């Protein structure tokens, strides 16, 4: 039986590596068959009302030592993994004596593969908002809230199988050469081909915001985006379909915007900041952006599950969670975390207002099949 399973693992791995050749590297690939994105954060979830003192205060400053233990972390590579490494992995290793092994292909399909083959090598993952819902329970360990402080993040960002670690804003990235200095002010501008000619980038996977921003552009208020009005969203998308590139990964969106192939893109603030730091003529519109967290998840059967939980608890402490903002323009998930003063304006938390959009993971999860069928039909038409 177990040999059959390992053969199956080899096979699926082969299939997978062939299949993902062109899509890997995306910071937010996937979702389960029933998946969905982001936090159901209602408008009121604007991180403010949260965080009490940690119940296990000592873990924040002196986490238990595990001399010489090798723990495996999987992230999305690039900007976010570099920041997580410097902000959390390295300091935690120094404090506890663990050694990190890092993988750069965090992906629910990989988790499924590892769990189903009974050969789990990852201990803790940074993953997107569309994974880690109740329906993914077969693949994940429940977060141990006797170790991790559930109240370290807003209530909607802590679930049975995941807890938020950092925040990102998905807004309008624009190439200033292509817009000739004009600044797109809202999603309505993003959809205005007359005002902003040129290609725009949306994602080919709808849970990553494609439908949300179409509705916002059509005048739907942030609190009324869900339930998604498919006719209205697709009708709005029709108006720019011929001028839109449907990117299959964030890195593709980033490349298209940075190179000037596209004038506008639905993209994260951190990716635009990284492009800008490399000298690309790009800027980011914070208004009306979608604020969503990344999440920690622990695969079912992770070899160092207990250490993974301690690490999550430590990284989410108010004194540690803000460190990620030092190395990239991600915000902390813990609303009372300390962030570098000079970065304040560059983080999603500084731009949350009544126009901010949020995903509704539960809605997306509950309605995934119908919406996916409709969107796929539209996309392939």
């Amino acid at each position, binding site marked *: 039986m177990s040999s059959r399973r390992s053969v199956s693992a080899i096979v699926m791995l082969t299939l997978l590596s062939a299949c993902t050749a062109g899509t890997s590297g995306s910071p937010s690939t996937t*979702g389960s068959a029933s998946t969905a994105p982001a936090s159901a954060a209602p408008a009121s979830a604007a991180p403010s009302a949260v965080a009490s003192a940690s119940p296990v205060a000592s873990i924040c400053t002196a986490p238990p030592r595990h001399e010489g233990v090798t723990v495996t972390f999987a992230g999305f590579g690039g900007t976010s993994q570099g920041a997580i490494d410097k902000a959390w992995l390295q300091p935690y290793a120094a404090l506890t004596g663990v050694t990190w092994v890092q993988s750069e292909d965090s992906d*629910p399909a990989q988790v499924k593969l590892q769990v189903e083959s009974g050969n789990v090598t990852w201990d803790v993952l940074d993953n997107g908002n569309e994974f880690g819902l109740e329906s993914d329970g077969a693949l994940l360990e429940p977060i141990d809230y006797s170790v991790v402080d559930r109240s370290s993040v807003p209530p909607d960002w802590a679930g049975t199988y995941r807890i938020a670690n950092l925040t990102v804003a998905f807004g309008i990235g624009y190439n200033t050469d292509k817009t000739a200095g004009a600044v797109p002010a809202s999603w309505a501008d993003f959809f205005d081909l007359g005002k902003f000619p040129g290609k725009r980038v949306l994602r080919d996977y709808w849970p990553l915001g494609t439908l949300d921003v179409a509705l916002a552009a059509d005048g739907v208020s942030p609190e009324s985006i869900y339930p998604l009005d498919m006719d209205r969203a697709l009708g709005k998308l029709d108006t720019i379909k011929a001028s839109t590139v449907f990117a299959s990964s964030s890195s593709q969106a980033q490349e298209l915007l940075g190179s000037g192939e596209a004038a506008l893109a639905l993209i994260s603030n951190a990716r635009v900041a990284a492009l800008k730091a490399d000298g690309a003529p790009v800027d980011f519109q914070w208004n009306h952006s979608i604020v969503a967290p990344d999440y920690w998840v622990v695969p079912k059967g992770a070899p160092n599950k207990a250490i993974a939980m301690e690490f999550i608890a430590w990284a989410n402490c108010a004194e540690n969670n803000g460190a990620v903002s030092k190395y990239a323009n991600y915000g902390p998930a813990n609303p009372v975390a300390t962030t570098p003063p000079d970065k304040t304006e560059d983080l999603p938390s500084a731009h949350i207002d009544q126009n901010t959009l949020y995903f509704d993971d539960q809605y997306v999860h509950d309605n995934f099949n119908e919406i996916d069928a409709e969107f796929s039909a539209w996309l392939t038409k």
Partner: protein
Amino acid sequence: MPPGVLRRHTWALVTAPTVLFMLAVFVAPTAIISSRSILELPEGASGDVLANFNRLLASDVSRKIMWNTIQTATIVTVVCALIGYPYAYLANVSSPRVGRVLLALVLLPFWANSLVRTFALDVALRDTGVINSLLGMLGVEHPLGLIRTPFAIYLGMTQFMLPFMILPVFVVMRKIDIEYTQAALGLGASPWTAFRRVYLPMSASGVVAGSIIVFVLATGSYVIPQILGAPRDQILSQFIANQVTQRLDWGLASAAALTLLAIVFLSLLVASRFVRLRDVYGAVAER
């Protein structure tokens, strides 16, 4: 023990790694994918082993994608044959030196990574790419929408697959004694008739061999349509990847993978109605 038996055992030993390899990388995966396609069912479909296949066939999206796959592979095969046949003929009738150069030109791209070549095409075809920039400098209206079109996919596949057409055709043409056509001409046939009635039928098996290879490669291509195409032109391999990595729907992905396999087998079956496949691959193998 008769020596023949010993020899057979020796050969079995020598072949064993290959057989094991094929079992591990082809037979076992196919078996596993087959079982997944009928056992890993969507919610509410327990017991209906054909549920995944029904989903595949009932959906307009996957039907269109299957059609895209067949259409794309057919067009690429025909284009490769139309370009490859005259090229192989030229390489055959040219002086040995020119012939070698022509063949080298076919083989050279093989040594450059196909992913790199596909990205190079992306850079050439995109709105801000080489071709459109040139048009801009010439004052011609641009950008031409070249990238993210079926045309870009056909171009990308053709540049990658052309050698797989030219080489088998070249090899078959090599075997044809030119005296047959000369005899036809001597007996009063026009050059066109001599070509059509004598040379073409004798070289057809090479075209069929090349076409089968190109068609199969095209149906299974992933990177080229992913980089050069748009979602509306996607083919089955991309659909499978999306199911595996985004939807985690490996049951549907497995059903789609088997469907892809069926498309390939069906096209082989169709090809075998026109030509004896044994002859085709015999012709190639002899060289």
